[in-house]
Structures are given as structure tokens and as C-alpha cells.
């Protein structure tokens, strides 16, 4: 009896979580524009999207931004993590405090503070300002992900590789890359997802000539519910879900 209630509870919660999304997806392939009745399967709204240049350029921009921010943040974060790993006895207190600060700042505060900063430094709002903002909020995340994997490793592995005659590069590529690549890939994929979906911080630091997808969606949402928007949102969802599934496969604990 107890387990039946428990299962019911779980089911209700998952249902409540997924139902709105399901409706969204279903109505992106519904033939009709205004009715809520099922009129048959149609991909017309996706075709409308395909023809919408504005939306495609926003999509493309977000993708480029996401990939660039993710690569830079992952690369920089990885090198930083490796250095922290190789010197376990050094505390790096100020770096860690700054990292903590960044994690604590709410994204709206990050957004406005960067806006002020860019204004003071005369940096025009556009791709570069967005890139800087995105790298900034991806970095703590990359560092956390890679560090948590590094913590399961023995710091002596690096010294041992050097000791046995490997150069620094060889030590990294022969020993750490094989051990770390799931964590590195996870960090990169999830950074991409965070960047691709970011609304709040981007809202403040984006300019008028570089449109990104979440902000485009935001302005469309204000105008109301449409099937094209449903289609767009469905695509966005799929783009977010794929990296997560890959990451899940990568980080599944091997027995």
C-alpha cells in the first residue's frame, strides 16, 4: 500500500513536470493554428521557422557563441585545474575566493555589473561582450566539474610521469587526457547548454546587432502563444537534451 502511494506521488510529480513540455511539442506538430483540437500531424510550423531569417540568424549566433564560450572556458578551466592539481600543497586562497564570489553572485547582478563595466571601458555591446559574460559564468562550472574528477586521482601521477621521463606535454596527453576526457567533454557540453539557454545575464550585455536565440524567444513569448514558437521551443529543447544524454552516458559510474 505504502509503495503504491509512493509510486503515485512520483508519477504525479513527473507528470506535472513533463506535461507542459509535452503539450508544447504536440502543438508544434498540430495542423491548426488556433484550435486546441488535434488536426493531424504537420511539420508546417517547422517549415515556417526554416524560412524565418531572423530566427535562424539568432539560432546561428547562439550556437557560435555557445561553442566559442564553451571551448575557451573549458580550455582555460582545464589548464587552471591542472595547475591547481599539480600543486596540492599551495592554497591559492585568493583564486578560490574569487571563484566562490562568482558562484554566489546572482546572474542578474552579474549582468548589470558587466553592463556597467563595459560602459566604463567603452566596450560596445555585441558578440564580444556576450562572449566575455558567457565565459565568466561558465568558468566556475567547468572548474567544479573537472576538479571533482581530478580529486579522485593521485597528484603523484603527474610527477611519476615526469620522473619516468615524460615531458610535460607527454604527461598531459598520455596520462591525463585519457583519464579526464569524460569530465572535459561533460564540462564543455554543459557549458554549451548553459550558454545556449542563458537569458538573464545576456539580457543586459547584448547589443542590438547580435541577436541571440533566448532573447528572441523571450520577445516572441511576450507576444503570445503560437505554433511557430512551439516549434522553435521544441528545437531548443532537443538541442539542450542531447548534450545532457551524452554527459549522462559519460559520467555513469563504472563498477
Amino acid at each position: 500500500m505504502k509503495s503504491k502511494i509512493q509510486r503515485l506521488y512520483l508519477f504525479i510529480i513527473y507528470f506535472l513536470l513533463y506535461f507542459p513540455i509535452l503539450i508544447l511539442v504536440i502543438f508544434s506538430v498540430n495542423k491548426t493554428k488556433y484550435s486546441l483540437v488535434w488536426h493531424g500531424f504537420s511539420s508546417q510550423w517547422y517549415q515556417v521557422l526554416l524560412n524565418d531569417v531572423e530566427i535562424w540568424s539568432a539560432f546561428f549566433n547562439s550556437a557560435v557563441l555557445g561553442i566559442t564560450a564553451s571551448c575557451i572556458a573549458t580550455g582555460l578551466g582545464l589548464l587552471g585545474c591542472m595547475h591547481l592539481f599539480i600543486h596540492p600543497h599551495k592554497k591559492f586562497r585568493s583564486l578560490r575566493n574569487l571563484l566562490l564570489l562568482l558562484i554566489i553572485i546572482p546572474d542578474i547582478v552579474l549582468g548589470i555589473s558587466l553592463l556597467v563595466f563595459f560602459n566604463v571601458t567603452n566596450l560596445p555591446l555585441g558578440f564580444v561582450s556576450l562572449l566575455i559574460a558567457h565565459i565568466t559564468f561558465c568558468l566556475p562550472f567547468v572548474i567544479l566539474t573537472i576538479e571533482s574528477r581530478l580529486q579522485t586521482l593521485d597528484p603523484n601521477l603527474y610527477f611519476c610521469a615526469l620522473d619516468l621521463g615524460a615531458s610535460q606535454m607527454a604527461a598531459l596527453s598520455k596520462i591525463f587526457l585519457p583519464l579526464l576526457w569524460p569530465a572535459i567533454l561533460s564540462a564543455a557540453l554543459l557549458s554549451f547548454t548553459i550558454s545556449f539557454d542563458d537569458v538573464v545575464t545576456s539580457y543586459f550585455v547584448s547589443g542590438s546587432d547580435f541577436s541571440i536565440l533566448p532573447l528572441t524567444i523571450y520577445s516572441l513569448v511576450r507576444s503570445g502563444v503560437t505554433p511557430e514558437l512551439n516549434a522553435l521551443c521544441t528545437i531548443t529543447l532537443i538541442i539542450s537534451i542531447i548534450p545532457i544524454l551524452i554527459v549522462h552516458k559519460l559520467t555513469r559510474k563504472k563498477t
Partner: protein
Amino acid sequence: MHNPLIEIKNVSKAFDGFSILKNVCFSVYSGEFLTLLGPSGCGKTTLLRLISGFETPDSGDILIEGKPTAHVPPQNRNLHTVFQSYALFPHLSVFENVAFALVCKKTPPTEINTRVHEVLALMRLEPYAERNIKQLSGGQQQRVAIARAIINRPQILLLDEPLSSLDYRLRQSMQYELKQLQKKLNITFIFVTHDQDEALSLSDRIVVFNQGEIEQIGTPREIYETPNNLHVATFIGETNIFDATVSHCDEENLYTVIDGIDIQCKRCNDFKTDDKLHLIVRPEDIRVQNVSEVSDTRGKLPGKIIDIVYKGTTVDLKVELSSGTIINASEFFNEDDDELEFSLNEPVWAHWLKGWEVLLPYEK
């Protein structure tokens, strides 16, 4: 003495403002088994890392074969380290781990194959060549770590507490194996441990460390029988420490007063009348006799037995002297000797043979 292989000259090192090594000087000779002995945190591992090149000294030099190593990176030094945690590469097999050093040197594959199998046979690891590291036991992993370090035929092998995570039995057998290996390969071993039994049984020479400084360097016998100071005396083996004052000296003897009793010691030129000193006697050197067996009580300390522990080869006694000091005595069993019958609270006399004590300057 022939020229030293490694010279540590006035080396100091500090981390985050804490001084780890203070002005350390000693030499290592080719072919010897040298142990760095000391409690945890005294700087032994740091010194090892300085010798292998992972850290650079703040001041002083390390010379290998007479040449300074200040700008020589670890890869270019002819020595290898066996780490306490083994640091085996988890994603490689036993074979690949052992072959690593040769792969880095770009040795041709056929040569790698022969040499790896040679070393695996030496370390009795042949059956495990293709296994993954995680499938091995602690002792096997340790042997892989050693195999990996010796395949390159280094001149010097640094071992950082390699046996500390093994159980007692395994440890004993590995100690023997290591000693045999060292002699066979004629590699200079620098061995780090905090276990004094291990140091005594394995080493040609021991360097006793305390808080970043060297307390004494010598053979195991020298360290054990003639410690330089209280720290070395108490760190190695059990001791009894008496506070004494010199009453007078003559040509042969030095007379001290312990708890009001005159004790005759062997003459020592370091001390003169009225000097305060510590008198050290090892438990196995103390003889405890029942009151009934003793006729001449001169130079003997009175007390009573407060604990008896039968240990098979010895019986360990705790004797509370009249002054309140508690001493440990360890008597070896001799079947013919029935003097070793003791009971609790029995009054006894404790003494030792003249000359078996160690006199050390008084320290607070």
C-alpha cells in the same frame, strides 16, 4: 671514502612561510642503502622531491656526481621514484605501466618487450602482465611500482615509504625482497620511512631527521647504541631516561648520582663534576634481580614490580623505583635460569653493566 654520488649541501626549503628543511647537509655513496628516518612531517618527503627535481631548494645545492642539479629537470636525472601511493597509471595495464619509461625514450618495441618481460620476471609479475592495475592486490601493485622504476636501470632509486600501506607479514617479506633487489642490481637506494624497525633492518646507513634538521647520521648500530641526543635515543627503540648529576670523575670511571644513589659509569670526557646529564639505558640492558639474590646493593636502584608482560621471547617488566620513576626492563628467557620468576609488587633491584649506558648532555 670514495667520492659521494649525491651531495646535499646546506639545503633549505620552506612552504607558505613554514620552514620544512633547515640547512641540511649529507652525502650519499654509490651502492648504499640509505634510509631517511623521522616522524611524519619532518621533511623527508620534501627532501626526496628536491633530489628528484620536483621542487627546487630555496637555498643550497644538490650535486649528483659532482654536478649541480639546479636547472636539471626531473626527466633528465638518472633517478626514479617509487611513491607511497604507488601512483600507478589506472588506465594502463601492468605491462604498459612498466613499459612507460621506455616508451617515453622511444625505445623500439621489440626491445621494450624483452626488457619489460625481464623485469616482470624479476619481480614475479609475469602472470599479471596484461591485467588492469585495479585488479591487483596491494603487494602486487607495489611490485609493479618498483618494476616500473627500475626498468630504466637508474643509478639511484628513491623510495617514499613504499611499504607503509602493506600489512605486517607482507611488509616483512617485501623488506627482504627490497634488500635482495638492491644488492643484486647495485642501485643506490634512498629509502624514506618513519618506522625505525624497518630502518634498522634494511639500511647501510640511517639519517635521523627531526623537524627539518638532521639529528644524526650513522650505521644502524651506531644510531642504536650511541645516539647523539635525546631525540634519536627515544625515537629508535625503547629507552629509559635518568636525570643525573656527575659527582666526580677518575681515570676509569665517572660517578653519577641518580635519585641519591651512586652509579658507576664508564668515563666520558664530555662531562665534568657537577654537570647535569641524561643517562640512557635500553630495557634489554637492565637487569632486574629479586631482593633475595642480591648481596651487594651498591650501584643498584631499588624499586618494585608494577607490571609483567610475557612476550614469548622476553618478559617485559615495569619497575617503579623508590623515587617514583618508572623504568622498563626486558629480560630474555633462558630455560636454565629460574631467576626470571617475578610477581607483582615484589621488591627488586635494578642495575646494568658499567659501560652499557649512554650519557647525553642535559636538555630541557
